[in-house]
């Protein structure tokens, strides 16, 4: 079957892939060749081709995380040629297509590198630290039932839209991988500002920001140095404005808790 672009020529590529059997073992880059790659394939479909080939040869396929392949679940997480999710801006690995590469190219594929994200195997890392940060306060404390009518509290559209923008973070961890300190500030700030912007979230705003930031430190993420490589590599465009909001919230919380002390 032909692809959407009948003139596109299949490509032959060299892949340099990080292989590591498990968290305890050490890893290394291993070189593979893949041939006849259609430019219409997604990056992960190209890896599928490699894996089918390895399996046929009786070799262990490359482990990597993925699920939706639509850029929304945040599972896929590859560091491609030194960049989180590869060369295309605003794109997750699964939405990156091979037409962005050229015939004969060598592509280096590594997992996210961060102390807080230990490698499970090959290209799959453990991002449960993100879950624990959310558990520290990334919610509104309401139980099921007994909530007021959805239209009881009007929320100005621009506020609601900004909260939505922040809420679109897919929890992929690209920001951490892009940061030389492996800071999780962009991820944390997205949740903090979503909830700080909305009246429903404001009730617990102070404890939330303190607890989430404290958890981030415990998990071993680095400090934020405000360079902004996180936002530049974020596939869904979470903006640095959120970090500003987090800092403001954090200062307010500190002032209040100092006063109370």
């Amino acid at each position, binding site marked *: 079957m032909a692809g959407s672009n009948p003139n596109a020529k299949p490509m032959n590529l060299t892949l340099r892939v990080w292989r590591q059997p498990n968290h305890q073992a050490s890893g290394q880059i291993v070189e593979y060749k893949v041939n006849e790659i259609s430019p219409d394939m997604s990056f992960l479909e190209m890896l599928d081709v490699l894996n089918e080939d390895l399996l046929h040869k009786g070799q262990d396929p490359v482990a990597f995380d993925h*699920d939706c*392949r639509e850029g929304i679940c945040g599972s896929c997480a590859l560091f491609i040629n030194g960049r989180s999710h590869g060369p295309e801006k605003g794109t997750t690995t699964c939405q990156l297509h091979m037409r962005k590469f050229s015939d004969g190219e060598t592509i280096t594929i590594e997992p996210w590198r961060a102390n807080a994200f230990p490698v499970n195997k090959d290209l799959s890392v453990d991002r449960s630290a993100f879950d624990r940060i959310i558990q520290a306060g990334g919610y509104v404390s309401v139980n099921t039932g007994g909530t007021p009518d959805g239209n009881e509290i009007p929320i100005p559209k621009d506020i609601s839209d900004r909260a939505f923008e922040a809420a679109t973070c897919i929890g992929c961890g690209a920001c951490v991988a892009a940061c030389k300190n492996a800071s999780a500030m962009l991820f944390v700030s997205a949740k903090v500002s979503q909830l700080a912007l909305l009246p429903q979230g404001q009730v617990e705003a102070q404890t939330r920001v303190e607890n989430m930031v404290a958890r981030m430190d415990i998990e071993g993420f680095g400090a934020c140095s405000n360079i902004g490589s996180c936002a530049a590599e974020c596939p869904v465009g979470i903006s640095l404005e959120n970090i500003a909001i987090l800092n403001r919230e954090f200062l307010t919380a500190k002032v209040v808790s100092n006063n109370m002390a």
Partner: protein
Amino acid sequence: MALNSKAPEGPLAEKWDKHKFNVKLVNPANKRKYDVIVVGTGLAGASAAASLAELGYNVKAFTYHDSPRRAHSIAAQGGVNAAKNYQNDGDSVFRLFYDTIKGGDYRSREANVYRLAQVSVNIIDQCVAQGVPFAREYGGLLANRSFGGAQVSRTFYARGQTGQQLLLGAYSALSRQIAYGKVKMYTRSELLDVVVVDGQARGIVTRNLITGETQTHAAHAVVLATGGYGNVFYLSTNAMYCNATAAWRAHKKGAYFANPCFTQIHPTCIPVSGDYQSKLTLMSESLRNDGRVWVPKTKEMAERVRNNEVKPQDVQEDDRDYFLERKYPAFGNLVPRDVASRNAKQMCDEGRGVGSTGLAVYLDFSEIIKRTSAEAVSQKYGNLFAMYEKITDENPYERPMRIYPAVHYTMGGLWVDYNLQTTIPGLYATGECNFSDHGANRLGASALMQGLADGYFVIPSTIGDYLAATPPKPVTTDHPAFAEAKAGVQARVEQLLSIKGNRTPDEFHKKLGHLMWEYCGMARNAEGLKFAKAEIAKLRKEFWQDVKVVGSGEEMNQALEKAGRVADFLELGELMVDDALDRNESCGGHFREEYATEEGEAKRDDDHYAYVAAWEYTGDNQPERLNKEELVFENVKLTQRSYK
């Protein structure tokens, strides 16, 4: 076994309240003495786990994902229905109920569907309170849109990412209970068997997907919220990991499987582009509100378009056939999914399809762009257009989109009664995993509604009825049934590893998917189904002789995981074919070519087939036994659906 739906007696509108009053309650002080296992943390599972923990039960939640935030629910685009009537356009609980029953082609249970419509309004309130940023109007109130052909605007949405926002809301509620220690969360843990002790569900067997360790877990009740099985077709809009294993293992342990052949094919997906294709991407149904569907009027013109001799945008109006507008003047491009899909297929079968494969029709936005502006269109659909361009390398502002139907949703699933309990006492099924509310065809924006209704509002009430009758004694994994189930799981892993054949799990999966799509897809007939049945049986046999998996069971091994899932699909696929063969009528997504009206529309047979087909497993390689739940309609009149 006689199937008792346990739907309460009495007037439709009072059934749920009455039922809630009649069910037994667990004493609040005793709730902490009960353990409940929830498998799956998508919308249906996360909402259930959080709500049950809030009530005081000890919950253990399981997902094969690395985080509960990633379930397939995250990908839902269009919206969630609720009978709020905020738009004052005549909506009501009864109308949502009626639309759902009719849309499902009269193959669902009245009492369940009415309850769904009733609690729909609470879902919105709940989500808003959690901080879900739904779309709003300038006055600050919630916005609605009309969706999937509904005549009222009852769909709540968060741009094209409604599922994401709803799931993150449920995930936040779940995270809070994890922090409180009321939910113990097991990620990257795949259910591989259900443990039944003395006829009651008492636990599960899981495999840790990182270490390979097999574990057993006991509880007083088990809830499966493990999603749908659309990936039996290999290509679908479902996430890659979606699979049938949890439901299928439960089925083999005694849970009946209902209406397996009812699958939904969504009309607007990006067409297949090559053999390497791993999944299909949905283009939201909302696009049909503004896009016009067409193919060239003649085969000759279609061929010239396919060969790039003529650009689609240059095809004259006279040479286009806006087939949905032509055939269904009342509903036009907004006919239900099954009707739109079948018509697209028919056009392609006639040789008028477009794209290099001829398996696509156009969805054209030129008129709305002319009438408003490219910018206005981008405001509404910008993210979808961008996604389309990323995948196809074509600009939909200039050139009509190519779309084709793809498998999207499975209405069938584990049979459940009004309490959402399966035929195994103590085993419940919620969300897409059960069969309950959508009959033979699901309406747009109703799956999210159902998953959250089940999890937030139904299960927390109904599970108490069962638990109250169960002594609050601690449960353990000491019973031999646990060791036996665990040994069975381990033996199967060993078996898959020992075959060392020549074909990969994906190769078997593709072959199965192809058979299902050709013979049990958009159109079915007895001859094709019989052929498929034989082929699937053959393929299954080959699988167990020739599948290739390398490595060991004591490590992260994605090919091994995949092999186990494909093995289950190979069994389920055959049951789907059996079910499609049994149902000698056409209804909703199930279109049997032998049963069509003169105009080629689906022809139901209410006299003989107004039942839920609930299949009972009787042993390996044995034919399954059909049990019927007759559907009783007291509040709606059965009519032939007409969208002309």
